[in-house]
């Protein structure tokens, strides 16, 4: 019940999984959205899946840089 000590707490990692998920959703959403918009604009069909895959790939890369190196 004493909480005045230990000023340097260990970082809580219990939310990391959810943050990774939010990154994945964000990446897929933004690049998929860009692909969707380009498809509409250019009248093409393939840019939405390309955008989704690109977003997922970039997000994984980002997660690698962000969490994989420490």
């Amino acid at each position: 019940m004493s909480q005045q000590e230990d000023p340097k707490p260990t970082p809580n990692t219990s939310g990391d999984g959810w943050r990774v998920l939010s990154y994945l959703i964000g990446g897929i959403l933004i690049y998929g959205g860009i692909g969707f918009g380009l498809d509409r604009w250019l009248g093409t069909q393939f840019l939405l899946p390309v955008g989704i895959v690109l977003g997922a790939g970039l997000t994984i890369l980002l997660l690698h840089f962000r969490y994989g190196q420490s």
Partner: protein
Amino acid sequence: MIAGVSTEFNPPGPEDFQLPPIIPGVDWFTKPVLVAGLSVVLIVWFFYGASRKSAIVPSKLQFAGELGYNFVRNSIARDAIGSQDYMKFVPYLCGLFFFILLNNVAATIPLVQFPTFSHIGWAYSAAILSWVIYNGVGIRKHGLLGYLKLQTMPAGVPLWLLPLMIPIEFISNIVVRPISLSLRLFANMFAGHILLLVFVLGGEYLLLHAGSIALSGVGVITLLMGLAIAGLELFVQCIQAYIFVVLSAQYIGGALADEH
């Protein structure tokens, strides 16, 4: 309920969450509002009573209050925000945690048995409040540009990749976070309640209206399964309250961080 009238089984769906107003004509006064209001009264009453004496040697009530308060203060707020700034956010995080916890657990309490957060409005308001707070303190500390730089420029990424990463960071940190925060809580409560309804209503239908002894036996088993599901749901309800508050605290901590 419908099963009592027609002999055909009606699977539970979103329409089961449309509750009539408690007082006819007062549309805003629904069961979730009543439950949430009672939970606020209960939380304030309990913690006021527990902390009132602020004794060095705590009574049993104060000890229980301290246990809950310490959990949010130390295990959630201090760990996620850091010992420098966390005290400012303890009141909000405490209120948030016990509000979500009580309203989630209310789904398991007999007579109440309705999860407030299966109405998404509650989840939205909690998520928006957290979003406003973590962006607000971040902008106040770093300035608008400094804060955007903090939230959109991931450290350790090669320079040529940065333009591709900034949109992802922005979307996930500013846009997806409140949505996922609210949807996660809502969906868990909503799905949990539907699951429970399926087992309870289905078991009841099989037991009373299917018209065969074998099916009645299956109904009993289904109801027992429903009991187990209710236990599982109790666990999920607590976990979801914890997740919501931990993530809110981590977003605040991230917004206040000096660098990634």
